[in-house]
């Protein structure tokens, strides 16, 4: 059957996350961006919502089972509040979800409870590389098999919390396939930039360059061990995270612009009463709806192991990148000069909006 309404449990989660996003994240969003500093007490509060924990079975320290549809719903809500904050709350996912989906029993036992048990800790992952034509399926970072270990060489960009992380999943090309390797802090040859990376947005999120100079990683640290794993599954889960985050940002911009247009007067009427503005808003809302349904369907297909799930996740994230750019650009346009002033959040969302075309890999659900 077709059905388009979250179930009761999902609705409760949406409400709880939505409340946190609006009351806590949004309240500090501007200041965090300006100070280029996260407020970790707010991030901790987000962690306590238990989004990741709910995806991890009890036997590994969590209290649930991963459901991509539920996670898509929750992540959109989170991103509605603030994207840097959402990515920070979700950074441990970058480490835990791949292990949950593709790890061996030993890897799950060893790492999952460490991540989800207790307070937020910076476990992370490194996918993106600094090249204009970066392609997650054609990584320049390489892994070579020697007698007892894989040797990793290369450079990774935009790795959240790398400086403080106890362990990082590093994606590298092995025999032409992208594969994940669990790299621990103390391994020789791993170095992390002192300076944080500076992007057009996400100022508050601490991102680092990570260098791997012949880092020896034991065979048991390869995700899925010697036989490896299906990278496409992880990539699809990253794309769903990206698509749902884009939806959250777009919806934030849409609602802000809509409310502004209903307040602002020009020529004796509210500007929302002008078709030039009203039609922009109608199209923004329509495009958000279109990509939201495509993202839901992709997530549902992933949950139900449909053959075209990966392709659909790709389509959803590609469509989301265009949609969020269009919506956030128009939000700035609707506010006019005021939209260009950093006091209003729409310029921030517009800067963020462009990022979805290249930031897949900063989150996974």
């Amino acid at each position, binding site marked *: *059957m*077709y*059905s*388009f*309404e*979250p*179930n009761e449990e*999902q609705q409760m989660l949406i409400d709880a996350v939505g409340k946190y996003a609006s009351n806590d994240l949004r309240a500090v969003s501007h200041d965090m961006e300006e100070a280029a500093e996260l407020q970790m007490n707010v991030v901790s509060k987000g962690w306590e919502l238990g989004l990741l924990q709910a995806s991890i079975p009890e036997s590994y320290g969590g209290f649930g089972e991963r459901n991509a*549809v539920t996670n898509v*719903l929750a992540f959109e809500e989170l991103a509605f509040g603030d994207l840097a904050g959402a990515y920070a709350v979700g950074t441990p996912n970058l480490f835990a979800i791949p292990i949950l989906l593709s790890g061996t029993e030993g890897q799950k036992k060893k790492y999952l409870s460490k991540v989800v048990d207790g307070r937020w800790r910076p476990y992370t992952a490194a996918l993106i590389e600094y090249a*204009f*034509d*970066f*392609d*997650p*399926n054609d990584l320049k970072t390489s892994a070579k098999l020697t007698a007892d270990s894989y040797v990793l060489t290369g450079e990774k960009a935009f790795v959240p919390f790398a400086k403080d992380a106890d362990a990082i999943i590093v994606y590298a090309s092995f025999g032409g396939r992208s594969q994940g390797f669990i790299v621990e802090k103390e391994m020789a040859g791993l170095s992390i930039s002192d300076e944080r990376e500076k992007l057009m947005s996400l100022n508050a999120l601490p991102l680092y360059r990570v260098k791997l100079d012949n880092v020896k990683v034991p065979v048991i640290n390869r995700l899925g061990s010697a036989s490896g794993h299906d990278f*496409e599954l992880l*990539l699809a889960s990253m794309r769903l995270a990206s698509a749902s985050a884009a939806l959250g940002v777009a919806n934030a911009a849409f609602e802000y612009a*809509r409310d502004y*247009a*209903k307040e602002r007067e020009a020529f004796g009427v509210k500007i*929302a*009463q002008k*078709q030039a503005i*009203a*039609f922009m*808003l*109608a*199209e923004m*809302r*329509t495009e958000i*709806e*279109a*990509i939201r*349904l*495509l993202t*839901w*369907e992709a997530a*549902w*297909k992933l949950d*139900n192991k449909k053959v075209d799930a*990966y*392709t*659909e996740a*790709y*389509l*959803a994230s*590609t*469509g989301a990148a*265009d949609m969020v750019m269009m919506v956030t650009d128009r939000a700035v346009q609707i506010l006019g000069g005021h939209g260009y002033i950093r006091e209003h959040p729409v310029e921030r969302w517009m800067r963020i909006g462009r990022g979805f*075309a290249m930031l897949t890999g900063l989150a996974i659900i």
Partner: protein
Amino acid sequence: MTIEFESPKPITQAQFMLKTVADEMMRPKSRYFDEHEHEIPWDYIEFMHGAMRAMGGNGLAPRENGSKNEEEKKHPPIGYQLIAAQIESLAYGDLGMYHCLPGGGLGAAAVYAAGTAEQKAKFLARFNEERPTFAAMCITESGAGSDNSAIRTRAILDEKTNEWVINGEKIFVTGGDKSFTEYEKLGKGYVVVWATIEPSAGRAGLRAFVVEAGTQGVKVDKLEHKMGIRVSDTAAISLVDARVPFDHILGSATVEKNTTGFKGAMATFDATRPLVAASGIGVARAALEFLKQKLAENKIEIRYGLPRQKLSNIEREVIDMEIMLKSAWLMVMKAVWMADNKKHNVLESSMSKVKAGDVSTKVTQKVVELLGPLGYSREFLAEKWFRDAKITDIYEGTGQINRLVVARQILGYSGSELR
């Protein structure tokens, strides 16, 4: 409730069957009827009528008020979803020929939406009888298109005979010829004529009247020559002192101050907008599949999953079109799912039409462009689909009217607050 995207079996079965109809009955005749405007595709009409009767269906209308059958009650209703899927499949075959599908069309939809139980019994049964039968809707006038409150056609009650006397001129009546002209091969059809019973009351005075085929004083004046969907007749119909029985009025015969009568008419569109959207998606899918087939023949593979920087332009275009098409289809399904579940769907209904109108025109235009000379040549159907598709952004509320509806919904504005 839940979030789910499993296509129900009746829908996949219908799609499978209608694919054969599209390939065998429609496509081979698409070009012929495009080039022989106003010829009636009798073989197709008779085949489809027979097939629909054999299946026990009376064309594209949802089942009356759900089933009392216990077995069927266990399943959620999918009436509108099934119709949307059928229409998409038929339009994929040929949008013009889809309009030649025998049945009540918009005329019956109006009866269904606004008629009494007696009227439904009287005016809906005929579509399931031996001969194929048509009905149509007459709303548009030369001076009243999207703004149908400007309708000038007048209905006056003759109290002596208890008949309505209708005068006016209607245009753009889809299927008007097959509904009103008494062809031997067809059963007796009707047109539903929108007229005002109280011109000073504006929209509140508008009512719909069932005008039976052959009614004296009513005449099909001409059939339009169109850019596309040429096999579908588009009639101009004039009414001069046309008399119809009192009980052929749909809705109340008295004028209240509010606009309930008019809203009844508009309710028809909430139900049918996503269906028209579905038809637009069908044409666009036909075009996109044809493009992909031609690319495959030329050994051009679409490499899904690559970053944009590595894709060729044609791959990007195809991928973008797939995103448009898939998401538009889901918007249609959500709108009809809401209709099936009796949820208020004005917003979703109009959004699906906005989106599908855009997608249908953009995709067909793009496909002709990308196919180059093959796209522009009349040897293939791409150029025809380009011409056919444009209408889906026009009828049943233009893209702009639907944007207006969407905008009013999201802003919480009335018609007077956002004109």
